[in-house]
């Protein structure tokens, strides 16, 4: 499938993936983040459930401390 991940085109050899699977494949080890699929907010308990499919726009915003 071809998706947009953080504004960049990205291809995976899978028909669909969950957010958890994408995090693993991309080696993202963020502790805190905000995830949206096509603008829809995906909260942490849904990372294992929410499917990403071809054409989806996925935003994974890594949150870091400081202020």
């Amino acid at each position: 499938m071809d998706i947009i991940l953080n504004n960049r085109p990205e291809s995976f050899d899978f028909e669909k993936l969950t957010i958890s699977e994408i995090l693993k494949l991309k080696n993202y080890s963020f502790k805190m983040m905000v995830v949206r699929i096509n603008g829809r907010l995906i909260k942490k308990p849904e990372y294992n459930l929410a499917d990403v499919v071809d054409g989806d726009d996925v935003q994974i915003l890594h949150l870091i401390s400081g202020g």
Partner: protein
Amino acid sequence: MNFSQIKEKLKDKTVGVAGCGGLGSNCAVALARVGVGKLIIADFDVIDEGNLNRQYFFYHQIGEKKSLCLQQNIHLINPTTRVTAHDLMLDSNNIYEIFKDCDVIVEAFDKAEMKQMIIEAVLDKLPQTPLVIGLGVAGWGDNNSIGCRQLDYLYICGDEKREVTDQLPPLAPRVGIVANMQANTVLEILLKDSSWTLY
């Protein structure tokens, strides 16, 4: 637009500032200086001596409540800006009530989990309200790594890289840059619907 016209436009606007630390205190002061009519600020914390390396407070205010001191400090700078100060811990349940009448909300927390909490709460309950967050402020130097980008109603200011650690503390210059970048983004949003525009 001259400054009188800008002030005229801003006097009916309300901006929420979630957190009165390094980002919040400096951002709120900048917004008051240019004449934003109403600020709704919130923080549960008290001022510590270590905060004075970046936060808009004074030595004699150590030990006092951040939200109330920031309200006083803003009043000394621009008494025409009305400030509602909430001395409390913000959470996903009270954010809606406190910030529901704001034209824009500024996220100004220090901890990543609080940033996550407010982003999710605003996306959930106030999806049409622009939220301007500060992300990546630690250390010094490297001006050109600091930027701003927009994801729908979410605006992200900072380098998105440098997390605060013992060896990479938050300091006045870089925190101030991001805080003022947040204030500048707020102005851009508030003044956007005017006939005069840069873009």
